[in-house]
């Protein structure tokens, strides 16, 4: 500023000084926002750990159930995994079918509206899925579950006796499957439709039928997307709360019997059910179980993202 005005260098200096300051402020703000997000994620882990700590260090007898934290969380973790496992087994073939239908079979003008319809499934709040499950799907499948108990009862999964209300782990698994189909299919649909044209046309030129084209070109190309998308869906199913809370009739039993009225609870549903009425160490124990859920879903999601980003890099 104090330099002689009129020379080229001072002009440039005068104009770059405030410009640099504006840039510096703005880029600092943007970087800070980015760092803040990472801090929030770290904060989730840290604050959960702080609030879970009293339960982790507490005497085993003080934890609900009286047998310590591990004995408290293990049956819940079992229920969480069981429900998510049913969901994933049902949802993956369904989602792949949906994605193939939209990307390979449906006429082009219809593909986009059909995609919207599937995405609508993801937009519906989980509480509404819960109400639908307990009021419609559960009662509607009571007879089916009774049939399963009568005719397939030799399989431990359908041992029975069948629940009279339909509030079973099987129904929960089906509802979870419906909820994660759009998540899986959003990823797979995208990748299926990006199958290299030349490979598809090459297969067709060799006389392949549509199915053979899909098997030889589309599915190998989209394999890692199916894996990654399924793991994203798995993460969602593990953490889903309200649908399970409302539908499932809970006894705390550890059993593979999917159609009886005594089912293991899940970590998330147990928190939603017990948290509002808990106090003292019980709250800390619930938060400790939430920390376990956070750790499980974090690992699943990180693995899913790693698989998906590798498949994307492979395509470039």
């Amino acid at each position, binding site marked *: 500023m104090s330099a002689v005005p009129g020379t080229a260098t001072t002009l440039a200096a005068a104009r770059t000084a405030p*410009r640099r300051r504006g840039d510096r402020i703005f880029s600092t703000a*943007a970087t800070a*926002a980015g760092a803040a*997000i990472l801090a929030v994620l770290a904060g989730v882990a840290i604050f959960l750990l702080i609030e879970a700590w009293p339960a982790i260090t507490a005497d085993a007898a003080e934890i609900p159930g009286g047998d310590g934290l591990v004995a408290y969380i293990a049956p819940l973790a079992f229920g969480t995994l069981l429900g998510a496992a049913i969901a994933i087994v049902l949802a993956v073939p369904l989602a792949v*079918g949906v994605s193939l239908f939209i990307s390979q079979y449906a006429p082009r003008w219809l593909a986009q509206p059909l995609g919207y319809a599937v995405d609508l499934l993801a937009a519906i709040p989980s509480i509404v899925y819960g109400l639908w499950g307990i009021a419609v799907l559960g009662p509607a499948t009571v007879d089916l579950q009774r049939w399963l108990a009568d005719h397939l009862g030799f399989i431990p999964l359908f041992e029975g006796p069948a629940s009279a209300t339909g509030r079973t782990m099987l129904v929960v698994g089906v509802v979870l499957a419906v909820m994660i189909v759009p998540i899986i299919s959003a990823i797979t649909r995208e990748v299926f439709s990006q199958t290299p044209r030349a490979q598809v046309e090459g297969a067709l030129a060799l006389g392949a039928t549509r199915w053979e084209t899909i098997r030889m070109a589309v599915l190998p190309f989209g394999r890692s997307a199916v894996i990654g998308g399924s793991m994203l869906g798995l993460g969602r199913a593990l953490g889903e709360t309200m649908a399970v809370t409302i539908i499932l009739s809970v006894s705390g039993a550890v059993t593979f019997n999917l159609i009886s009225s005594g089912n293991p609870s899940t970590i998330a549903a147990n*928190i939603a059910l017990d948290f509002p009425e808990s106090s003292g160490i019980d709250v800390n124990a619930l938060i400790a179980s939430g920390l376990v859920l956070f750790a499980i879903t*974090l690992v699943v999601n990180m693995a899913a993202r790693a698989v998906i*980003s590798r498949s994307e890099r492979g395509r470039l």
Partner: protein
Amino acid sequence: MSTALRAVSWRRRATDRAVTFGVATAFALALAPLVSLLWTVVSRGAERFDATFFTESARNVVGEGGGAYHAIVGTIVITGVATLASVPIGVLAAIYLQEYGHGRLKRWLTFFVDVMTGIPSIVAGLFAFALFAIFFGPGIRLGVMGAVALSVLMIPIVVRSTEEMLKIVPNGLREASYALGVPKWRTVVSVVLPTALAGIVTGVMVAVARVIGETAPLLITTGTFSSVNANPFSGRMENLPVFAYSQYKSPGVPPDPYFARAWAAALTLIAIVMLLNLAARLVYRRFGTELR
């Protein structure tokens, strides 16, 4: 020889047909719940989808009557605060990723924003609870706690969608701005952001639609309350999803009026979510066309 050939191609054709049938069935199976669910919610929710429902609270209501006015106010306040907190952070972080980011921080942020979209909503609720419980004790229930929980869920969605929108702003626009001597930050604020504005607004609306139906995190942070409370910093605050849940879970005697209110709340939620998604699509179609 020729019969053998024909047998093989018959089998191939049959497999192809079977797969076509299977794929179409899968699609129908996936959409059947959507139809059933929408029908159930509309037919059962219509009974109490009336003026009283939107103008009266549940204060001192036993049995029939009453409404969800207090819950609607709560939902608007909680979601509004969450949006006010999430949009600046999310958009700035997206600007960092697209315009400034480099090296390890960018890679980490990209990865962890994706991971963050998968945080279970109940865990976000526990985080908000833990954060406030450390300072105010374990009995604390506030509207703003719910907003913090929803922000954790919303921020990654806003970052993702904003980043996508900034990506499709043509580089020529940025270069033209630099060529005119406009500093980088002014280029971002007055060239890049306005160009991507429709897309960013669309993304925010979709993010709002995603979190407005969240029940679990609010159940443990805002509690339940049957009167109107519009102050997020004072006391418990009801909201639509929790209202639907508590009406259904702990009904009075006879239970039918409570169930009817729960279904009406579910119908209201679905209507809000659908309207938000529809509006988002319209905004993008109306104002976002120059980019495509």
